[in-house]
């Protein structure tokens, strides 16, 4: 067994505990350790990505209990890709948190960030549905702490809404798992994939109910309409750097939907059929529209970023909902792009907000370093709205191309939403950076905070320049997702060791 598969979960767990017990209150050492752990995680993630590409799908059996009796972690191309994305994003946000001083505004920022990384990495790697629930809770508890980091009245009250909403989601998750276990007697994803096709017809209604409940849970995480209400309030009230990191959390919902929709409830499964697609496609298109209208109507810069995030999840889910290899490949490319782009937008919003003391979109005195920030905002807006030359354009083009046969509906919504987003970003940008009058306040030098945003931008540029090889790799990934025999075989069901 390849023991490195556990590393993205165990490394942050150890580092977080070390920070709480040994380095308590010592911010400088916590920062150094967090940077070292972030670099190590990036190295491990790249090695895992390489391993998944060259050696194929591998399973790790915790405690050497054979699947489906024990819990297995499964490293395939998709999970390796998502772990690499997590490692890169968490490192950039870590640099920003250190550079902007957010981590000094309350206790335990660094341990909470490590626990969040642990939970997200676990959710990406696990091959067991109940274990997925447990990692969801790990990442949620860490995110509750990060969300109210730095405290403040509105932030605490928005935090209450966020926690309450997610607790209802967790309850739904457990009910769905109970139904699935009651019908099939297993919660191992590969075992479910092997058993569900031969399900007796009398049980298919229960499985359909469970499938819809799971999709609801993932839609809450991914902030799909009508379950998006928590996101603008939460992300706009969270510290900017935390909101940027949360860009990966909505992708946990997207990842889980992709995993269940291709492995456990594939479109050719008699019990569910195209149930998931028929629910997800309308929700995704409406999310895209709501997000785009929200960017046009947002009153503060963080809320603008939050609605742009909802729109990008809508577009990603539009592509996911079709469940074909071509659309899945397009969705994966767009997910990579939108995670980085949303994070940049939140970082820019944070940089601007901290220079103006509030995030309202009105023309007041100029912002310190307004040239630099305007350039960053322009880049982020270009990426989010899907304009050339950045990767948002390629991602949108791939999705449009994949939906040739449903062009009248899907193309209209996507292109209309893009237009509204361009308007929204143009309005916000011109209000903030163009109209102000008077003398600019002195510049605040934050090389790390600004550098982190630029490093994410470099990621987008790389994604654009390497679009050819990346899409070819993602096409192979999507093909493997839709023919999950390799994933199932890696779990060695019914064999010893």
């Amino acid at each position, binding site marked *: 067994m390849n023991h490195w598969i556990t590393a993205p979960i165990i490394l942050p767990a150890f580092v977080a505990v070390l920070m709480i017990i040994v380095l308590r209150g010592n911010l400088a050492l916590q920062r150094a350790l967090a940077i070292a752990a972030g670099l190590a995680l990036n190295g491990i993630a790249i090695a895992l990505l390489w391993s998944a590409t060259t050696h194929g799908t591998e399973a790790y059996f915790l405690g050497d209990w054979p699947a489906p009796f024990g819990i297995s972690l499964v490293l395939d191309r998709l999970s390796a890709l998502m772990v690499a994305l997590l490692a890169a994003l968490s490192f950039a946000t870590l640099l920003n948190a250190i550079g902007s001083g957010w981590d000094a505004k309350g206790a335990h920022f660094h341990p909470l960030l490590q626990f969040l990384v642990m939970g997200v990495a676990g959710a990406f790697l696990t091959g067991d549905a109940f274990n997925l629930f447990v990692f969801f809770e790990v990442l949620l508890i860490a995110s509750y702490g990060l969300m109210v980091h730095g405290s403040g009245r509105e932030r605490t009250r928005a935090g209450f809404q966020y926690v309450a909403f997610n607790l209802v989601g*967790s309850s739904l998750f457990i009910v769905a*798992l109970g139904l699935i276990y009651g019908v099939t007697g297993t919660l191992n994803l590969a075992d479910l994939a092997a058993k569900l096709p031969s399900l007796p017809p009398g049980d298919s209604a229960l499985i359909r109910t469970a499938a819809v409940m799971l999709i609801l849970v993932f839609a809450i995480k991914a902030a799909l309409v009508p379950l998006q209400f928590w996101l603008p309030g939460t992300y706009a009230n969270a510290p900017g750097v935390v909101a940027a990191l949360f860009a990966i959390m909505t992708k946990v919902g997207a990842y889980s939907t992709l995993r269940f929709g291709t492995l456990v409830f594939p479109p050719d499964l008699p019990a569910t059929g195209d149930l998931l697609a028929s629910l997800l496609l309308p929700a995704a298109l409406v999310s895209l529209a709501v997000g785009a209208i929200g960017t046009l109507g947002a009153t503060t810069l963080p809320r603008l970023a939050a609605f742009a995030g909802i729109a990008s999840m809508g577009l990603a889910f539009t592509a996911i909902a079709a469940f074909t290899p071509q659309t899945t490949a397009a969705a994966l490319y767009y997910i990579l792009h939108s995670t980085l782009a949303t994070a940049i937008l939140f970082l820019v919003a944070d940089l601007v907000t901290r220079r103006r003391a509030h995030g309202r979109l009105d023309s007041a005195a100029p912002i310190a370093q307004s040239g630099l920030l305007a350039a960053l905002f322009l880049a982020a807006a270009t990426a989010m709205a899907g304009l050339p030359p950045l990767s948002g354009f390629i991602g949108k083009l791939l999705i449009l191309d994949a939906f040739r046969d449903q062009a009248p509906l899907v193309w209209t919504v996507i292109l209309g939403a893009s237009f509204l987003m361009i308007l929204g970003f143009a309005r916000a940008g011109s209000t903030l950076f163009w109209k102000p009058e008077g003398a600019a306040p002195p510049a605040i030098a934050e090389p790390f905070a600004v550098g982190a945003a630029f490093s994410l931008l470099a990621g987008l540029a790389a994604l654009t320049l390497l679009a050819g090889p990346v899409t070819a790799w993602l096409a192979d990934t999507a093909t493997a997702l839709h023919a999950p025999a390799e994933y199932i075989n890696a779990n060695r069901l019914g064999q010893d060791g």
Partner: protein
Amino acid sequence: MEALVATAIGTLTAVGLYLILQRRTFPVILGLTFLSYAVNVSLFVSGRLVTNAAPIIGTGETFADPLPQALVLTAIVISFGMTAVLMILAISGHLQAGHDRVNLGDDARKDDA
């Protein structure tokens, strides 16, 4: 017995949902607690209801499924921790805002206290 347990789960869920829809934080927390009770019992039942049977060890015709019991234990621990976190958030929100309404952005309007 199935009918009894099913009715209990249904009642707990209904009580929980009603309380979650209230606009004060404390009823919402109570509602979430009721909902987690309902969910835990329903997860427990997913291993089928068996009386007077040992899980795995022992001799007998029927066995209780031990896995849902382990799952329920995990779920109970998690929901307990989550409720504690939520309670802390509610209390600090109450102390900072001076009221315990759930909705945001209404601090100008105090008349529905």
